[in-house]
Structures are given as structure tokens and as C-alpha cells.
């Protein structure tokens, strides 16, 4: 049974692609899936940092493509999981032009033989780095935040994905600030989804502990009490085909939340 390759992209930088990749990957692994995360941001890698695997890298993606090592030698295993989560890090000393889309595509094909899910973390932009990232993908997740500039860029990237023959990109709206949205000062979830007219895979509310956990090298999704964590866990469950209702961002009272929490932490 071949696995599925999903590229995580956004066009705009700084919307949380890497955080989303780390957390969705970890959440899938928590659901007993074998997951490989691939960092294609050559030259500006940081998926390894967010996962806390920085100091265990020996080889990287460019080494594999240029034949300096075997694929499995470059995979960094996440010890928090038995055999569930691996990272193929990007090279830090090279740039996007070090590899071609065809080479990355072939590499992803190889990983799909072995893993249930291959998540590809894409660099910002629409140039070669993006082309490399989408080359082997079967599906795409577009990450955006409720800001007009990020939504514009998401629209551009969705148009490009549609031309790549990657059907039906899925949308993740990240860093939702409840207060702003309730006051109508930020774009709301409905507005963004209708504007981009693609399926909404999930929403993640803004949570300061995401930054703290990234700095510690522990994806927030490992902490079941965080609000952002629930968002990512829901996303993973939807990827696995479960139908999970959208988190209600407006009516969140402590009572409601503890109910939700008890649902997801059993």
C-alpha cells in the first residue's frame, strides 16, 4: 500500500508552514501512522529545530540526492515515537537550486513506499523552492492567516497548485485571534473560505504556547491541553478521513473547552 505525499505551502512566509508541518506530522504519528516529514527549505531549514531534532542530523536531502548517502541514513528518527515519525532535513549550506523538482519528486516516490504519510514542508515564495516542494505531492495543504496579504498569496498559490494537477488543495487557517475576529477586525473563517473557495481542513487559534513549545523543540500537539493542539489534532483526524466538526471559536467558555478537551484526551 503506497503512502500519500502532502505538501504544506502558503506562498507568503511567516504564516506557520513549518509549525503546521511539525504538528500535523506529529499528530498523524500520534494516530499510529508512520510519517516522514521532508524539509525542502534548503538553505533556511528549521523544521528540525521545531521538532527538536537539530542536533541529530548527520546527512540531509541534498546528500541523498547527490548520492553521498542512502536515503535511510539521512532520516532522523523522533525518539518520542517508537517508529512513527522521521525527518528528512534540508541542507543548510546550499540553496534551492541545489536540487531539481524531478529529483525531489523521485525521492518522495521512494519515501511513499515506506511511509503512510510524507509531509513536505515548502519554503515561502513561488520560485524553484516551491516547485521542488510540490513536485512529488499528491495533495496540498495551503496554510494562511486571517490577514489580507496572506489570503492574497494563498489565492495565488492555489491557482498554481490547480495547474500542477494537484486536485483540491485543502485550507488551514492558522493563528486565529478570537477577539479580533469576534469584533470583525480580522477576516473571518467563512469569509476566507468562500473567497478562496477550497475545502477547509481546519483552523488553529492563536496560542502563545505554540511559540514556547517550538522554542523547546516540542510540537504543541504533544500537549493535549493547548487550544492550538486541538486544532492540529482535528486536522490530522480529518486527513485520516474522520469527520470532525469545526472547532467553535466564538462560544468558547471554559466549560465548553474542558468538555472538548475531555473528548480529545481520552
Amino acid at each position, binding site marked *: 500500500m503506497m503512502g500519500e505525499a502532502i505538501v504544506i505551502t502558503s506562498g507568503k512566509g511567516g504564516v506557520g508552514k513549518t509549525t503546521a508541518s511539525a504538528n500535523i506530522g506529529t499528530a498523524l504519528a500520534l494516530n499510529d501512522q508512520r510519517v516522514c516529514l521532508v524539509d525542502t527549505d534548503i538553505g533556511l531549514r528549521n523544521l528540525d529545530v521545531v521538532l527538536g531534532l537539530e542536533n541529530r542530523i548527520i546527512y540531509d536531502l541534498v546528500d541523498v540526492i547527490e548520492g553521498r548517502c542512502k536515503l535511510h541514513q539521512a532520516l532522523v528518527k523522533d525518539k518520542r515515537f517508537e517508529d512513527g515519525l522521521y525527518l528528512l532535513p534540508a541542507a543548510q549550506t546550499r540553496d534551492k537550486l541545489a536540487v531539481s523538482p524531478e529529483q525531489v519528486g523521485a525521492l518522495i516516490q521512494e519515501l511513499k513506499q515506506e511511509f503512510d504519510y510524507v509531509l513536505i514542508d515548502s519554503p515561502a515564495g513561488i520560485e524553484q523552492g516551491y516547485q521542488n516542494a510540490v513536485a512529488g505531492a499528491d495533495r496540498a495543504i495551503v496554510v494562511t492567516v486571517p490577514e489580507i496579504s496572506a489570503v*492574497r*498569496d494563498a*489565492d*495565488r498559490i*492555489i*491557482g498554481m497548485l*490547480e495547474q500542477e494537477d494537484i486536485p483540491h488543495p485543502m485550507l488551514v487557517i492558522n493563528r486565529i485571534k478570537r477577539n479580533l475576529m469576534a469584533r470583525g477586525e480580522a477576516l473571518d473563517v467563512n469569509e476566507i473560505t468562500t*473567497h478562496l*473557495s477550497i475545502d477547509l481542513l481546519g483552523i488553529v487559534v492563536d496560542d502563545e504556547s505554540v511559540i514556547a513549545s517550538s522554542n523547546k523543540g516540542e510540537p504543541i500537539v504533544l500537549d493535549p491541553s493547548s487550544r492550538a493542539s486541538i486544532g492540529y489534532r482535528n486536522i490530522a483526524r480529518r486527513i485520516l478521513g474522520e469527520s470532525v466538526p469545526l472547532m467553535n471559536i466564538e462560544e468558547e467558555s471554559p466549560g465548553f473547552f474542558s468538555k472538548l478537551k475531555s473528548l480529545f484526551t481520552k
Partner: protein
Amino acid sequence: MPTKHVTMKGTRDGLIIHLNDSCTFEQLLSSLERFLTDERVAEKIEVDVHLGYRYCSEEMIKQIETLFQQSAYFTVREYDSFVVTKELCRREVEKLKTEQYIGIVRSGQVLQAEGDIVIIGDINPNGKVVANGNIFILGQLKGAAHAGAAGDVKSVIVASHMDPTHLMIADVTELVNEDSSLLLHANRMECVHLLDNGQMTMSELKDLRLARPDLMTRIGGFQ
């Protein structure tokens, strides 16, 4: 009687000179030359020339035209013929064709059409539609639209929800911002066309019916 290759007929719209299409072209030219020197009319008149089923290349038309230019009495208003080349016909059909597109025209995308285009979907900001004919949008126009891109000032832009950034018809451009004279009305279909003075205007459906009756192939009321 060689001159029977060339006959002149009067119609309600004026005189038409019919050129025989079964004789050779040389015969036709000499007949025409004789006709133009023999025929005398009171004053210089404009005529239409009908070539029948003979296909004439541009070169051949030029030879006919030369004869007319030498004549003191006739000038040609228009050449007509029952035949055209396949290529010309294909190009004409292309222009008349209405293309359809289903989907969203997204940021950075440009959708182009030879003739009219119907878009079932939205044009998002920074997306653009360019057509040589009319543009009809069954959705929201939030980006840019250019109708009559080859210069047809009669072209129109219609959208079920008008919220554009740029509107262009032929070579008239309107930036739709707070300085624009175009008034946007939410929740109703809007039609954009050029007035006779070249100014762009946005109006309701009923105004389009009056301004561009040629757009309709069905007129009148229905039961």
C-alpha cells in the same frame, strides 16, 4: 458577346456589378475593362462588386480594383462574394464563439478569450479576464476585466456581483476606487458599457437592454 461576363443591377441599396464566376479570370478582366470604358453614366457613382462563387485572392482583387480606379464613373464601395477561405471562416467563427470557463480566476492568473466569454465562478483580486468580445460573469468580479480588448467599443462587462479593481473596455480604463464615478450597488447584477462619448458607465440590466440591443438574439416578450 464577351461583355455579358459583367452585369449591372440596381437594388434598393444601390448598384451592384456582378462579375461572372465561370469564365477565366483573364476573360473577366478584359470584359470588365470594356464594360468600364463603354458604360457611361451621368456622374461618378459608388457601386458594390459581387464576385459570385469565384474565390479571388487579394492580388486578384487588387487587379480588379486597378481597373475601377482607371474608370471615370465608378468607384467600389465594397467587394462581396459567396465564398471565403476555410482559414478566414475559422477565424470569424472563433470571434463569434462564446467560450465558457468554470472555476475561480485566481490571483496572478489571466484568462483570455478570442470572442465572448462566460465565467461560471469568481474573478479574485489580482486575477484578470481579457476578451476580444463581451465578458459575462456568473459570480463575483473582484479583480480586473478587459472587454473588447482588440478595440471593440461596443463590448460589455456583466457580473452578478460587481466589486472590481479595474474595468477596461477597448482602450478606456477605469480604476474602481473611491475616486471613481462608477457607483457600485451590492446584490444586483451590474452591466458596464461605454457611452457614445467614450465614457464608461455602470448600470442595471434594463439599461443594457436599451444600450446594446444587438446582444440579444431573442427579443420581445415570452408566454
